[in-house]
C-alpha cells in the first residue's frame, strides 16, 4: 500500500469517528431537551424515556473509546491528528457526563411530580437557565463540526450567564427555606436540578475549550478569557 493510500484510509477512519461523536452529541441533545421538557411539563413518561435512553449514550461512549484506542495503536498518529484524537476522547467524556446530568434531572423530576408541595416551587425560574444550557451544548457541537473558533470563544463567555442564573436561583431558594422550613426538602431538590443544569453548561464550556485545543494546539483550560482571546487571534 502506498503512503497516500494509507493516509486516506486513516482520514476515513477519522471521519467515521467524528461522525460517531456527532451522533452521540445528537442523542445527548435530545436527552437534555427531554429531561428539561419533562421538568417543565411534569411528565413521567418523558422522564422515563430519558432514563432508558441513558444506556445508549453510555454504549456510544464505549464504542468511540474503542475506535480511538484502536486507531491510535495501529496508526500511531502524529501531532495534529493525535491532538484531534485526544480532544475527541475528552469531548466524548464530557458528553457522557452531560448525559449523566440529564439522567439526574429526569430522576429528580419523577420525585418532584409525585410530591404536591414540590410542584408549587418556582420551577419556572429554571426555564431560562435550561434553555441556555441546551443552546450551549448545541452550539458547542456545531462549533466542533465546523471547527469554529469564534463560536467556541463565545461559548466560554456565555457560560458565565448560566452561572449567574444559578447563583440568583440559589439565593431565591434560600429565602424560601428561611421563610418556611417545610420547603427545605423541595428546595434542595430544586437546587440539585439547578446544579445539574449548570453542570451541563460547564460541559459545553469544556467542549469549547477542546475545540480551541484542536485548532490552535494550546490547552486553554484554566486560562483567563483575555488569554484565550489572545491565543485565538
Amino acid at each position, binding site marked *: 500500500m502506498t503512503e497516500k493510500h494509507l493516509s486516506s484510509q486513516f482520514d476515513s477512519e477519522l471521519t467515521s469517528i467524528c461522525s460517531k461523536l456527532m451522533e452521540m452529541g445528537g442523542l445527548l441533545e*435530545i436527552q437534555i431537551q427531554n429531561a428539561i421538557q419533562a421538568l417543565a411539563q411534569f411528565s413521567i413518561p418523558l422522564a422515563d424515556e430519558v432514563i432508558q435512553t441513558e444506556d445508549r449514550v453510555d454504549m456510544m461512549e464505549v464504542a468511540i473509546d474503542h475506535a480511538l484506542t484502536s486507531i491510535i495503536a495501529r496508526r500511531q498518529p502524529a501531532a495534529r491528528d493525535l491532538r484531534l484524537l485526544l480532544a475527541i476522547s475528552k469531548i466524548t467524556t464530557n458528553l457522557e457526563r452531560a448525559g449523566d446530568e440529564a439522567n439526574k434531572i429526569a430522576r429528580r423530576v419523577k420525585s418532584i411530580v409525585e410530591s404536591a408541595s414540590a410542584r408549587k416551587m418556582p420551577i419556572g425560574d429554571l426555564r431560562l437557565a435550561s434553555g441556555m444550557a441546551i443552546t450551549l451544548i448545541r452550539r458547542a457541537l456545531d462549533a466542533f463540526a465546523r471547527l469554529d473558533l469564534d463560536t467556541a470563544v463565545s461559548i466560554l463567555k456565555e457560560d458565565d450567564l448560566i452561572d449567574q442564573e444559578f447563583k440568583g436561583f440559589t439565593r431565591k431558594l434560600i429565602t424560601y427555606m428561611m421563610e418556611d422550613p417545610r420547603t427545605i426538602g423541595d428546595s434542595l431538590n430544586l437546587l440539585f436540578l439547578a446544579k445539574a443544569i449548570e453542570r451541563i453548561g460547564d460541559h459545553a464550556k469544556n467542549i469549547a475549550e477542546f475545540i480551541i485545543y484542536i485548532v490552535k494546539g494550546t490547552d486553554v483550560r484554566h486560562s483567563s478569557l483575555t488569554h484565550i482571546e489572545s491565543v485565538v487571534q
Partner: protein
Amino acid sequence: MYSMLFRLTVLFLLMGAGAGFASLFKHTIPSVALGVALGSGLWLVWDTWRFLRFLDWLRRLHETPDAPPRLSGLWREAAQRVSRLLRKQARLTRESEARLENLQAGLQASPNGVIVLDEHTHIEWCNQMACRHFGLDARRDIAQSVTHLLRDPAFVAHLAARDFEQAVIMTSPVSSEAHPLRLSVRLCPYGQGRLLLISQDITVFEQAEAMQRDFVANVSHEIRTPLTVLAGFVETMQTLALSEDEHREYLDRMAQQAGHMRRLVDDLLMLSRLEGSPPPGLEDWTPIAVVLAQIEADARALSALTTGASAPQRLVFPAAAALPQAGEIAGAATELQSALSNLVNNAIRYTPPGGDIEIRWEAQPDGTACFSVRDSGPGIAPEHLPRLTERFYRVDSAFSRATGGTGLGLSIVKHVLQRHEATLTVDSAPGQGACFMVTFPAYRVRGEIAAGGAGM
C-alpha cells in the same frame, strides 16, 4: 481553394524570382536550381514567421483573449475558425451558467428548505430557507457532512435507513421556546446515490391541529358537565317522590344548568360568527358615551347581584359630565359593547366584595385611545397571562364555573379586538389586582377624548 492557389502561386513566384535572379549571373542549370532553392527557403521563413505569430496568439489566448493577429491566407482562416469556436464555447458556458443560476434562484425562491447532498451525504448546496430551518451557513457549511449539523437521532436514523417514502418530523435545531420550529423533512434520491433534502415548516399546522383537537375535547367536556347534572336531576325526579319544595328547588337547579349550556352555545356561536364574517369597516361610528353608559348600567347591576349590600364593590367610571366629549369609535357597536363589558364583568366577578374597580377611557399621546379596567382582585400569575385568551382557559376552573363562567369570555374579547385592529394587554401579578387595557388605533377613534392622566 483560393488560398491554396494563392499559396502555390506565391511559392512558384518566389521560386521563379530566385531562378530569374540566379540566371542574371550565369546561364547554367545549377545556378537556376540554386535560385529555386533560395526562393523556397525565403518562402519557408515567411511562412514559419506567420505560423509562429499564430501559435503565439493561441498560447496567450487563455490569459488575454485578443482578436486573432492580422494574417493572410490559410493562417487567417485557421485563426478565424479557432476564434469563432472559442466564442461559441464561451457563449455556451455563459448560457449554462445562467441556466444554473436561474435554477438556483428558483430553488432559493422555494418556500421549502432545499439541501443538495452528494453521494457521501455531504452538503453540496443549500438554499436560504434551509439555512433558516437548520441554522446552516450557506457558504461555510458546504462539504460538511449533513449529520454533523442535523444531529437529531430521528433524522440520522432516517438517513441511514435511506427511507425515501416517509417524511421525518423533527424539531429544528434552532427551535426555541419563544420561536418553536417543527419541520417535516423528506429525502429524495436522484442521480447516482445523491439526495435532495426538502424541509417544510409545519409549526403552524401542528399548532392548529392541536388546537382543534383541544377544542373538540373541551367543548364536549364543557357541555357534558351541566348535562350530567341535568340528567341526574331528571332521574331523581323520575324515581323519587318529592315534596312540593324539593320539586321547585330541583327545577330551579335544572334551569340553572340549562342556562349555563345556553350561554355556552351562545358564546360558541358568537365566536364562529366572529370568525366567519368580514371585519367591521371604518364607516360606522359609535359614540363611546353610549357604550360606556350601557357598560356602567350592566356593571352596577352585576356587582349588586354578586356582592350584596354589606360590602359593595367600589366602581369608578368616567364622570358622566365627561361622557359627551368621549368621542367615537369606528366598528361594530354590539361587538365592542360585548367585548368591553366582558372585561368589566370579569373584574366584578373576580374581585371580592369591598374591592375597587376603575374603568377609564383616555386618549394617548400617540393618538390611540385606551379603554382600561383596573381591579383590586386576586390578580393573575405570570404563567397564566399568555394563555388567558385561549378558549376555555381558566385560572381556577372550579371557581370560574361556579360563578357561571364559560371560559370563552376573553377569547371573544380577543377576536373582537383583533377585528378592530385593537390590542389587549394585561398587567397583573398575584395579589396585585389586574389591569386589562384595550388600545384602539388612532384611525378608529375621533373626537375630543380626554387625555390620559399620569396614572396611565
